[in-house]
């Protein structure tokens, strides 16, 4: 901020309290810090500021697993922010049950959320005892394979059409000095890769009986054994990618140093920021090119209960703004995610997003693992997967046994 802006801001703090319409500051915490994500948040802030309020950005770096503990301890510790991001599902469930979150049912009824939000499972995840506690903002799905066209050209193989072709092309990529599969070191990335393999290679029934019904017999069964074999192949392909953050791994694909990455559709934003064109510079395969299904979760905003009347009003405005059709389009185009409304105009979306929209429109959207499993079970699964993907000493058979144990005690 330059001096003049600072002076103006200081002057404003003196003048404004005397004015009638006071801009209310609302702190919004989130973990959107990569290039594409930050650009998307700026759209939200712009729309909220246009309503006469003031967006105070509370970005927390280091991905959701770092940010969520900070958010939760602020809310439970009695220093709540104005609004906060969580993933759809059960991450904030206990906070809602403890009465720490604001009931948004009125806003939702006014905005007719029940009609416009597609798929309906998103709003269901926000609903506890018939009341709506969060505003879904986007749809994300994990089941995407991002491929660098340049890398495959260099290796002299055609760009794969599905996961099996990708596995077959891996040795060629290695020969050409290219990392076949980019995988960041953080545990949630290994967990997501595995879940993607479960849905793509195991199919819808296996995915749902393992994660939604928590059937330990299926988890220990032959179908899952195949998935674990595939995971072992993925482990070989990922060996040697020494990066931590997901966007660093995506960057390996963007620069052609890696052949591909399995990552959610938020990776799309990174390709966009780098000025790459879907179909020409990179390819995307939803469901790894095999499964017609994707599992849709996403981000939602929760609004902690505040004492301040003004701020509570501003919270309602923010919730409305987030579901506004214009904001939905502007935000989701930058973010690379799909809008939660079925009724918005998306003429400007690119190839990859069209594929995603088609799948959702066909009704092939399944429950995400964040919605199906508690944070505790998710964490145990991530711990197992990060161990599996980093060390070849854990055999697929042993890993499957431990996986079945986790599922049998999952909640």
């Amino acid at each position, binding site marked *: 901020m330059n001096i003049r802006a600072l002076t103006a801001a200081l002057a404003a703090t003196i003048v404004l309290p005397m004015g009638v319409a006071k801009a209310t500051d609302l702190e919004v915490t989130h973990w959107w810090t990569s290039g594409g994500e930050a650009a998307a948040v700026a759209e939200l802030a712009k729309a909220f500021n246009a309503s006469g309020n003031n967006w105070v950005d509370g970005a927390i770096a280091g991905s959701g*697993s770092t940010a*969520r*503990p900070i958010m*939760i*301890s602020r809310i*439970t510790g009695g220093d709540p922010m104005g609004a906060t991001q969580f993933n759809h599902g059960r*991450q904030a469930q*206990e*906070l809602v049950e*403890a009465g720490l979150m604001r009931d948004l049912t009125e806003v939702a009824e006014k905005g007719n959320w029940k009609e416009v939000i597609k798929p309906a499972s998103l709003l269901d995840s926000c609903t506890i005892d018939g009341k709506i506690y969060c505003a879904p903002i986007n749809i994300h799905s994990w089941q995407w394979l991002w491929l660098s066209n340049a890398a495959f050209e260099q290796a002299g193989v055609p760009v794969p059409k599905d996961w099996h072709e990708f596995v077959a092309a891996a040795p060629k990529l290695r020969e050409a000095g290219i990392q076949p599969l980019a995988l960041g*070191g*953080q*545990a949630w990335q290994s967990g997501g890769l595995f879940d993607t393999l479960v849905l793509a290679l195991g199919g819808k029934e296996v995915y749902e009986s393992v994660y939604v019904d928590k059937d330990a017999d299926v988890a220990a069964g032959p179908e899952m054994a195949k998935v674990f074999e595939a995971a072992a192949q993925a482990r070989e392909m990922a060996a040697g990618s*020494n990066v*931590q953050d997901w966007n660093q791994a995506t960057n390996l694909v963007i620069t052609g140093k890696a052949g591909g990455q399995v990552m959610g559709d938020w990776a799309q934003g990174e390709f966009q920021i780098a000025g790459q064109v879907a179909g020409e510079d990179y390819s995307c395969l939803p469901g790894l090119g095999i499964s017609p299904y994707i599992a849709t979760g996403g981000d939602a905003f929760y609004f902690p209960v505040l004492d301040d009347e003004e701020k509570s009003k501003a919270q309602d405005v923010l919730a409305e703004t987030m579901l506004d059709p214009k904001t939905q389009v502007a935000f989701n185009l930058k973010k690379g995610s799909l809008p939660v409304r079925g009724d918005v105009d998306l003429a400007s979306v690119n190839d990859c997003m069209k594929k995603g929209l088609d799948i959702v429109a066909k009704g092939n959207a399944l429950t995400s693992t964040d919605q199906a499993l*508690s*944070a*505790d079970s*998710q*964490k*145990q699964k991530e*711990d*197992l997967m*990060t*161990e*599996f*993907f*980093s*060390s070849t000493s854990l055999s697929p058979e042993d890993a499957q046994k*431990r996986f079945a144990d986790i599922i049998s*005690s999952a909640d």
Partner: protein
Amino acid sequence: MTGHAPAKRPNQLFRNLNSKIASIPMILIAMGIFLGGSLWTILYSFTNSKLLPRLSFVGLDQYERLWNTSRWIVSIQNLAIYGILSLIFSLVIGFLLAALMDQKIRFENAFRTIFLYPFALSFIVTGLVWQWILNPEFGIQGIVRSLGFENFTFDPLYNPDIVIYGILIAGLWQGTGLVMCLMLAGLRGIDEDIWKAARVDGIPMWRTYLFVVIPMMRPVFITTLVIIASGIVKVYDLVVAQTSGGPGNASEVPAKYVYDYMFQAQNLGQGFAASTMMLLTVAIIIIPWAYLEFGGKKRG
């Protein structure tokens, strides 16, 4: 009182009244926060508390799950390796440095500052610095390779089998300076005459150190031991900054397990069970030692 009252033995409770009043806040804090907090934690470790604490008891379930979790076992092993090696190496290196420093060398102040300086850095900074130094592309491996040794490999932080030693290096770099200073202070406290006597008797210098000086420095060693040991049990930030527990869970430590399960996994019960185990470990080490050190005979 006009002086004829019999001389009564002063009430023990009111002796040094001022200092007793002054220490009341500290006593309250210690009782309330440390003792109370510990007891609360132990109590709730027998419950199935998730994100928020609640009293619904599940017996030893949390402990059973804890000891069946491979990540916890790995954490304990890592702590044992890190703890034993860092105890040995920081004492040995620290003492050697102090002994060398004690040879009336030139620029002693400058050397002392250099060796002590890492201690002024937090573990987070230390971890980040060593993360870069040990990074295969930019650090030692990259430099040696650019000198022409193409096959040189040194990437401890990316090899699950040796990652804990990469953390140990950073820990030692940070901690030995302090040990050196403590040892140096101890060495300076040894009477000159003892050295003279040893020289008159023709005892070689190394034997004087080993059999005369070190036994005389017992209190310094005990202090140092306590400082190093408490640093080992709570090691957390160094791991977070250097590897965040990776690759996989090869460099996990117990303190990180506690944090991750309490806050990321939203499972307070599991986190409390793990922290109670940490407390138990410390108690097992401290209580016999304290008994030997302070029990039995009274010291002035």
